[in-house]
């Protein structure tokens, strides 16, 4: 029996596949992916970025990727494997790779690393991320306009600041339209499990939510919304195929330009450790076409997008009031500063729930 359980445990740890092209003295660029490249979400979009990179600089570089790399100790091995294979610039594309990346970066000072969505840096390790909360704010406006029941359903992955700030941005926006808007939040405790994401979406619809938003990676929730005649927002990539009558818009990760810029810097020898946090203005992400909504809602969304892009509208404009009814300290002048948003671990007033584990 003990053998069985041991085997179960090892089985869960294994699961990775390698793919590589071949060439002699081109710059080798490596990518570590959390999911399969066909996940149609997070990893898929990173891989689209890699493909854009190959298209642009394919004669000068060679890319390799490892997919299905679990966050944790396995990641360290995978990153090191890329280093040993001669990759000089390595992108690790999930939050949970932060410490493993840092560890490997310290071990190999001559290799450059780029870690997505983290906050730890070193002289050979950059970080990069997007201000998705800007997109979530636009979604919140649309959701409040389109909801008939006044109840929004939100599927979260893990209660990390990125997800929490997305929820807050959504609600702050929705409250400007409907001050009494309610949100039901279900944590899937996974980034990728289509079945569970579908279950969560069903539970939200069954409990009265008529607009579904998700911060998990598969189109399962979109498909449930479509099946039940509700509305939904896509995540990471275009999901309209799974809900032609359901998708309102989707936040599209567009990593290509960033990857191209960073690899060009590496080729020129000008690469240095940086912290990039780009929003709508720097095209780190885009909004999918606004669909399945009346023209006035569409116009409102487009206006909000233009205002955010121009820097005229900030989703976390002060005063921001926490659940305890107290105003949050306003460190960024007339809005919360980046640090407060990146480390956000509280819900704003109007969310009738608690962050798990707090």
């Amino acid at each position, binding site marked *: 029996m003990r053998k*069985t359980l041991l085997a179960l445990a090892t089985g869960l740890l294994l699961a990775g596949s390698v793919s590589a092209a071949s060439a002699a003295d081109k710059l080798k660029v490596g990518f570590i992916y959390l999911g399969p490249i*066909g996940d149609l979400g997070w990893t898929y979009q990173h891989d689209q970025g890699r493909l854009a990179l190959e298209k642009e600089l394919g004669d000068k570089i060679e890319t390799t990727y490892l997919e299905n790399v679990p966050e944790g100790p396995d990641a360290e091995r995978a990153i090191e494997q890329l280093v040993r294979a001669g990759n000089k610039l390595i992108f690790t594309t999930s939050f949970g790779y932060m410490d493993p990346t840092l560890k490997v970066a310290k071990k190999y000072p001559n290799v450059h690393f780029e870690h997505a969505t983290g906050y730890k840096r070193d002289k050979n390790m950059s970080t990069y991320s997007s201000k998705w909360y800007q997109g979530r704010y636009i979604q919140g406006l649309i959701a409040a306009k389109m909801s008939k029941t006044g109840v929004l359903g939100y599927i979260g992955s893990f209660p990390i600041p990125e997800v929490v700030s997305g929820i807050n941005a959504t609600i702050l926006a929705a409250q400007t339209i409907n001050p009494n808007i309610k949100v039901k939040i279900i944590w899937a405790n996974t980034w*990728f499990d289509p*079945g569970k994401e579908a279950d969560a979406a*069903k539970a939200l619809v069954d409990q009265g939510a008529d607009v579904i938003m998700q911060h998990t990676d*598969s189109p399962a929730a979109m498909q449930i919304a479509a099946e039940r005649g509700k509305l939904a927002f896509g995540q990471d990539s275009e999901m309209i195929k799974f809900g032609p009558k359901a998708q309102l818009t989707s936040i599209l990760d567009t990593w290509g330009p960033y990857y191209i810029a960073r690899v060009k810097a590496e080729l020129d020898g000008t690469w240095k450790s940086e912290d990039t946090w780009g929003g709508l203005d720097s095209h780190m992400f885009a909004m999918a076409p606004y669909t399945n909504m009346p023209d006035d809602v569409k116009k409102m969304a487009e206006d909000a997008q233009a205002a955010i892009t121009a820097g005229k509208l900030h989703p976390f404009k002060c005063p921001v009031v926490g659940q305890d009814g107290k105003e949050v300290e306003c460190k960024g002048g007339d809005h919360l500063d980046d640090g407060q948003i990146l480390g956000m671990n509280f819900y704003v007033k109007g969310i009738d729930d608690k962050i798990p584990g707090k």
Partner: protein
Amino acid sequence: MELVEAIILSVLAASTPLLIAATGELVTERSGVLNLGVEGMMIMGAACGFAGAWLTGSIVVGAICGIVAGTLMSLVFALMALGLAVNQVATGLALTILGIGLSGLIGAGFVGERITPAPHLYIPVLTDIPLVGRVLFGEDAFVYLSIALIVGVWWFLYQTRPGLILRACGDNHVSAHALGYPVLRIRTLAVMFGGACAGLAGAYLPLAYTPFFIPGMTAGRGWIALALVVFASWRPGRLVVGAYLFGAVTILQLHAQGWGVGIPSQFMSALPYLATVIVLVLLSRARTGGSTAPAALGTVFVPDR
């Protein structure tokens, strides 16, 4: 009341793939073979099942493709573990890794496509009965098939002579061999049945649950099915209880979050696994009436000819 009905419907759908896969593995293990490749066979069933359904437009063809894919995978296992007497644990794990990789390859061309999911039954009058109607007469056919399957397996194992022989192989292959039973042939058939069930369970996901294919979409359900067989102490009746309990906890914890019950969601997500661990402990402490696991489980058998 509608909410209760909706929850029961969700629980049935969530439990069905687990029940089908675990039923197959139960038969395999009762014959004395431990096949840890359920996850790999399931995901192959998902990929091939979706491919079949997408190409032909028929859910039935899809389900058959899933069954065939799972069976073929299990034959690879049978060849290695039974034919060549390779270590079963290692072979099973390898089968899972093979299945995850191969299914990604097969499914690559189908990612992003979608199909019309298996229709839910509708029997006039019966399906319209409040509360129980949709549960008893309004789910997709797989749900009822899974129940028929486990009842059939129970009947086979405990009410028929071939079932008795299969269990004998699992408990003492030397004696079964001495009595003249073809142990390896019986075990091969049991492994194939396990593969067919895993393939069908995998196919259920893209055919009825979430009607698209994504690599890795089984997301560990094969491992849960394996755990369920242990949870059920290798008995069909307890397997049904285990599968629905697991599904119920999974769904209810999602609803509890929506209601704002103040229990951390991480804890509730872990509940089904905690339950499995507790049952394991209870089982190992209360060893009354002999061992619960098939005595020859996981051991290699090479007949001396």
